[in-house]
């Protein structure tokens, strides 16, 4: 059993995560500047990219704004710089995770701190991956601030010293079940950010925010990708429970909330296919599902006692 911990690597990991928080904040500021002042250019260029690359919907309400004055050159550069900064922060986040994993010689998502750090990483990864093919730079400020807040929360309230884990977590299932849960959660966060912006955004009014249509599209795409992954994560969890606890499903609080989350996301997909629920109502359903996801992540560990021994929170 690996009980040895490489302390200097563990410390390096903690420092890398701190630096990553700062980098995300920097990227957030640049994205915000771009959003506020670099907009006219962005809109035109992105619309063109949209038409060219994806044949996406035209955004009628924004067209009128296109005629506005050209944005300052520095604001234009802020946008590109923000993307570069986000990639650097992403690399820092990745390095923080890797060094921790190497320091303890196991998969680095076996307690709440490591789990939240990995989810923030997954959310940013999802954003950057979609950004390669889709004009969603407008989301940058919101995604990076979410990641910075998530990491900050993890560092301040969840941090535990790097170390070995409970025997229940010695299993290859951690690589399968938890990894899938992290990837799905990252994408759900992206969708959640879009859904919140969607509700803030009023149709038909000028705004620095993108149109509801594009927000909805990104949210839907993220959920469509993550829902099967989440389904798989829940099933992998059941398989692990079958190895570890002697039953594949036993309504442990975590299981209950994973199931609730799954059902409500399924309800979102159905809501989109049901007349009268499209648009706003469906987005609210997706936010309810997102709330269940977050509650499962944080609330269940705090309020209920269960079998999940990773819920290792400092008290």
């Amino acid at each position, binding site marked *: 059993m690996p009980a040895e911990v490489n302390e200097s690597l563990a410390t390096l990991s903690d420092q890398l995560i701190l630096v990553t928080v700062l980098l995300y904040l920097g990227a957030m500021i640049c994205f915000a500047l771009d959003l506020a002042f670099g907009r006219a250019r962005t809109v035109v260029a992105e619309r063109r990219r949209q038409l060219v690359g994806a044949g996406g919907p035209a955004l009628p309400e924004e067209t009128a704004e296109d005629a506005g004055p050209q944005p300052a050159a520095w604001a234009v550069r802020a946008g590109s710089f923000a993307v570069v900064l986000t990639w650097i922060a992403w690399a820092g986040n990745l390095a923080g995770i890797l060094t921790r994993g190497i320091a303890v010689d196991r998969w680095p998502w076996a307690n709440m701190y490591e789990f939240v750090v990995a989810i923030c990483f997954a959310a940013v990864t999802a954003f950057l991956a979609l950004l390669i093919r889709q004009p969603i730079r407008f989301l940058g400020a919101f995604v990076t601030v979410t990641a910075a807040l998530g990491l900050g929360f993890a560092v301040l309230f969840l941090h535990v010293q790097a170390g070995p884990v409970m025997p229940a977590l010695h299993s290859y299932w951690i690589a399968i079940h938890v990894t899938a849960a992290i990837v799905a959660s990252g994408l759900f966060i992206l969708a959640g950010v879009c859904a919140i912006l969607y509700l803030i955004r009023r149709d038909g009014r000028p705004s620095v925010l993108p149109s509801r249509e594009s927000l909805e599209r990104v949210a839907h795409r993220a959920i469509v990708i993550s829902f099967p992954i989440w389904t798989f994560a829940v099933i992998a969890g059941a398989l692990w429970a079958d190895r570890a606890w002697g039953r594949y499903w036993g309504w442990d609080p975590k299981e209950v909330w994973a199931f609730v989350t799954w059902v*409500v996301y399924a309800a979102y997909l159905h809501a989109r296919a049901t007349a009268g629920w499209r648009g706003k109502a469906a987005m609210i359903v997706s936010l309810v599902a997102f709330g269940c996801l977050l509650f499962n992540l944080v609330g269940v560990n705090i309020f209920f006692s269960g079998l999940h021994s990773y819920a290792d929170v400092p008290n």
Partner: protein
Amino acid sequence: MSAPDDLASAERDEAVRDEAVRDEAAAIEDARQEGTQERARPVGLGPAGWMRWTWRTLTSMRTALILLFLFALGSVPGSIYPQRGVDPSRVAQYFKDNPAQAKWLDRFWLFDVFSSPWFAAIYLLLFISLAGCVFPRALTHLKEIRRRPPAAPRNLLRLPHSEAFEGGLTLAQAAAALRRRRFRVVTGDGWVSAEKGYLRETGNLLFHIALLALLFAIGAGGLFGYRGNVLVVEGDGFSNAVAAYDRFMPGSRVTAESLEPFSFTLKDFQASYVAAGEKQGQPLDYLAKLSVQDSPTAAPRDVDLKVNDPMDVNGTLTYLIGHGYAPTFRVTDGKGQVAYDGPVPCLADDQATYTSECVIKVPDAQPTQLGFLVRFLPTTVPNGNAWVSVFPGAANPTVQVFPFGGDLGLKSGQPQSVYQLDTTNLKPLGTMSAQPTPLNVGETKELADGAGKIQFTGVKEWISLQITYDPGREPALLAAAAAVIGLVLSLTIRRRRVWVRVKDGKVTVGGLTRTEGGGAAFAEEFAQIVTALRGEPPTGDSAGADQGGGEPDGPARAGHVAPDAPTGNAAPGARPDEE
């Protein structure tokens, strides 16, 4: 191919041709999914009419949506209140702490949420709704799969994706090009019609049917399977029979004979812990060494039982789920007889130090019955006037013994917990101190009033096991895997149609995706198809897209496509066809 079907599809294509293609497409989707749900209530239709109405309402999407919400909402109390099926002792505790509230909660089955009638009502309704909506859809889909793609609409340029060009393309060439892209193709008088993406609906049906199968598998497992718990001390054995269990939970179709006849002895149990540092005392690994006989006549084999690694005997699984200390004692009574000699399982009070508590009951002791409360300290260090354990491993094991004499109350017929001493008719022997001097292994304590003596003879460990037989496991896994595959197909594949008309060297191509949200990706595919049809070799992803690049994005683009869009300039992506 039946006539009404063709009529229906002709009507649909007629509608698609309409100016408001987009709204119409949405309406078609609605009609498809909502079915006849929005129908008025049947007034005076008689029982048959009412039943039809009820069935339609039950199997509509909206009802399914509401039932899904209820399903989610209904399972929430199961995480808030302790559940009998999960942890009966916490339920008992709840009854002790809030008797009045607990009584009310129990009336609503809130301690048995997942086996309650109202929870069953929700999921049965949901699954009837599911079956009622999936099976008719499966039949329709079977017909659809065999049907040929519908004839081309008259004016292809009004479709969400369209393109016109001059060229020498023949119908046969167009059909071949589309077949190469694995479209299903039919040709008519001057047109080619192609369709693709049937797997989407197949996947969707597979998913929903897999959910039904999953429910059956879980139900069958509950009926024909069983689960039991047992505690075994080092050196002791177990053989798989109902009477050997401490707690046995059979499904209603389980008989005593259906238990797999294996047996084992626990030779040794080892736990290792982090020795130093911030995480000192955290468990690292557990290992139980068993000697197992798969059947009474089989030769014994050695098995290492670990967490996450159950032992499998012909589908009956044995899991290591807990452990603790079982110090051994020899009690000699006032008449000099050995009245007790053996291990006593203790329950850990504190996981970090494994300070444990145990109870010894000696009903055979003379002249009075004896009872002992024992505190077991695995790694003892003095702490002022007291002694504490500082580590869960047994590095310096001692026991603190609190002796009682009198009536143990075992004759009253009331069931007693082996971990509790009923002291109503017992009195302490000698003066009771909160911190009696601990005994080391081998040491003996003389009891006051000539009641005898107790010797701490050694330390063993116990393990708790769960033994499960669930014939529904594998079917449930298969169903779950099918569900994921179906889900991926249903969420990633787009159903799409492409038509080509050729007239006097003028080629028009129109395309339509019937899947919401698929528009952007289809635009790319459509552009590639057009490029291919023009006889140019496709040039990767952005091939046809370049043509749209030069298109000025004016407000006019957003609203509609002019029917006579200039040749070659109709940007493939100019028309949003997704909502």
